[in-house]
């Protein structure tokens, strides 16, 4: 891996470029690569890519992007360049597995396999907004899910009843966030479970503040340190990576391509979805990546969009699996809210997709989550069941794609459903769903069984 101080130096001395010039250059390069490598969905309604050569072409397009264009540092308005040898070395040397947590709660989080047969890794919760009064209780609930490998923190509107303004409060809020998480996992009987700090802001001060082997982030914990959309990086993250590199930690990178943005449509977004994990590793040392492709309208909670976004997402996962050691995850966001049939159907589609593409599951939540209404333990537990059913049926990509098409037909033309808050449909004290949510869960499972998934 290139030394972090070398990355910092390149960010300081690389060619200057205005940000909008970079954005448009990215778009033009993506269009050029799409044409050169003929990256397009070749099946009318292919939900999951089954063309391995296409995945490999997509990977080559991503490498060409990095070598020809690079990454952009928004802190210095300069381009960071990498050469081909550095890129090849990075994808080969990136860790294929990460040991996280400690004691009996230590877990190995590893790169999955396309059409693999092993259970997938999971972070079941957070990266969603919760108020501080629910802090440790929410963490406890998600840590109680036996298959949890790590838990990420949450967005906070206030700490100690105060709005979080300025670096002093940001640092304090970050420390409290980790403290609540630590308390929660202890209450769940999993004191060594790995915690990932969700950034209060992306300023280095608030990322570094909770570093404390006894009471805060341990060397076996992690940080969310994402590259920015449009292949951008920034100084605060490079700084944080430098500080933590000698401490020991693992870093998570949010790195999907957003169709509709500067990368263009799904084809450009899939290139970005491959580029950003590589850049995340090379610039920040990120070792886990929730990536793939999303659509602007989906992320905004406006429309349930499936094909061809699912197809593009599968190309990203397959490209990474076939050509790199990078550990990739699927961030399951749903347009529909909690305690809805469509919400669980969206979860199911993503779970089947992730499983056959070898992607771990990451923090399922409502895409445009309101306060205390982003997630409950039902969704990840349900997704684990769906994933296991997929493995049990030994579903490969082609068959899984057909099942997904059937499920998608049920969602066709339906608008996102309004739902409930976390506490309206889940009892966080008793750790159980409301009767209404439980009934919906059973109904959706029955529907999925009719489509060929066998639940134990």
């Amino acid at each position, binding site marked *: 891996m290139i030394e972090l101080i070398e990355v910092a130096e390149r960010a300081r001395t690389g060619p200057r470029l205005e940000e909008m010039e970079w*954005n448009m250059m990215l778009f033009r390069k993506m269009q050029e690569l799409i044409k050169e490598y003929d990256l397009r969905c070749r099946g009318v309604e292919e939900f999951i890519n089954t063309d391995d050569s296409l995945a490999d072409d997509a990977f080559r397009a991503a490498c060409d992007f990095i070598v020809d264009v690079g990454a952009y540092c928004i802190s210095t308005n300069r381009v960071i360049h990498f050469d081909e040898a550095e890129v090849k070395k990075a994808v080969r040397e990136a860790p294929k597995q990460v040991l996280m947590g400690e004691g009996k709660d230590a877990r190995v989080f590893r790169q999955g396999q396309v059409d693999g047969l092993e259970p997938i890794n999971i972070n079941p919760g957070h990266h969603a907004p919760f108020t501080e009064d629910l802090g440790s209780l929410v963490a406890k609930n998600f840590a109680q899910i036996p298959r949890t490998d790590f838990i990420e923190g949450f967005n*906070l*509107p206030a700490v100690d009843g105060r709005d979080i303004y300025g670096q002093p409060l940001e640092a304090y*809020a970050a420390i409290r966030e980790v403290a609540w998480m630590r308390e929660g996992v202890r209450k769940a009987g999993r004191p060594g479970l790995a915690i990932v700090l969700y950034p209060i802001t*992306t300023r280095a001060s608030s990322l570094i503040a909770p570093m404390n082997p006894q009471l805060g982030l341990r060397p076996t914990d992690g940080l969310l340190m994402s590259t920015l*959309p449009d292949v951008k990086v920034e100084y605060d993250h490079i700084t944080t990576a430098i500080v933590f590199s000698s401490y020991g930690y693992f870093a998570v990178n949010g790195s999907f391509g957003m169709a509709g943005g*500067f990368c263009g449509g799904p084809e450009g977004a899939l290139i970005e979805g491959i580029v950003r994990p590589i850049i995340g590793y090379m610039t920040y040392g990120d070792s886990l990546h929730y990536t793939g492709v999303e659509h602007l309208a989906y992320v905004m909670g406006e429309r349930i969009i499936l094909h061809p976004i699912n197809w593009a997402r599968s190309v990203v996962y397959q490209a990474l699996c076939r050509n790199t050691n990078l550990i990739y995850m699927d961030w399951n966001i749903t347009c529909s809210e909690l305690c809805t049939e469509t919400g669980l159907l969206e979860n199911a589609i993503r779970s089947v997709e992730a499983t056959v593409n070898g992607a771990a599951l990451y923090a399922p939540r409502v895409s445009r989550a309101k306060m205390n209404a982003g997630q409950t333990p039902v969704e990840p537990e349900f997704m684990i069941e769906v994933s296991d059913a997929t493995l049990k049926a030994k579903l490969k990509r082609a068959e899984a794609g057909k099942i997904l098409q059937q499920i998608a037909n049920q969602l066709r033309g339906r608008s996102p459903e309004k739902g409930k808050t976390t506490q309206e449909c889940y009892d966080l004290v008793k750790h159980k769903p409301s009767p209404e949510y439980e009934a919906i869960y059973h109904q959706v499972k029955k529907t999925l069984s009719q489509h060929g998934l066998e639940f134990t």
Partner: protein
Amino acid sequence: MEKSEYIKKLREAILSYDAEAALRIAKDAINAEVDPIEAIENGIAAGIREVGEKFQRFEVFLPHLVMASDATTEAMKVLVDAVPKDRVGAVKRGRIVVGTVEGDLHDLGKNVVVMMLKAAGFEVFDLGKDVQTNVLVERAQDLDADLIAVSSLMTTTRPYQRELVEELDRLGLRTRFKVLVGGGPVTKEWAEEIGADGYGRDAMEGVAEAKRLLGIED
């Protein structure tokens, strides 16, 4: 060439994202004594509105909005100058300062709003992301803006939208500028709570709110 032909070609130049053609045709149109207001409304505005609608349907993407906006800007330089002083009000919709609040580096949603506001005919000054409150206020004053639009995509940076409203109040500028808020964790209830003038759930709503706040009827 017929005057209507110039207007048609202006619209086409916007739809083909051709800034050079837009500028050239705008100059030719003025030389041919085409009414600049008509050229703006039925040529430029019609073209960029259509691009905006295509974006809403996801037929084109953000870069297309940028290119259409660039073409619009080129043509408008010439056309606005040609509008008689007593009719300038007909083409000036309002001046808007936009930014993502301090501590927040998310800007995709903000970028979409900027482009859609431009497509709707507003003069937009994009201050970028991680913009401190005092910078938003100072730039709005320097530019003699009508509205300040701020985006926040993190729950933890949302309070800076409140800070903006409070700062305008403190400086005695609260009624001078309209405040429009938006972003992932931002809701109508939040906007009301902090005393913002308007809220946009998405870019289209943001544009509609900007029009409402500035008294523009289409």
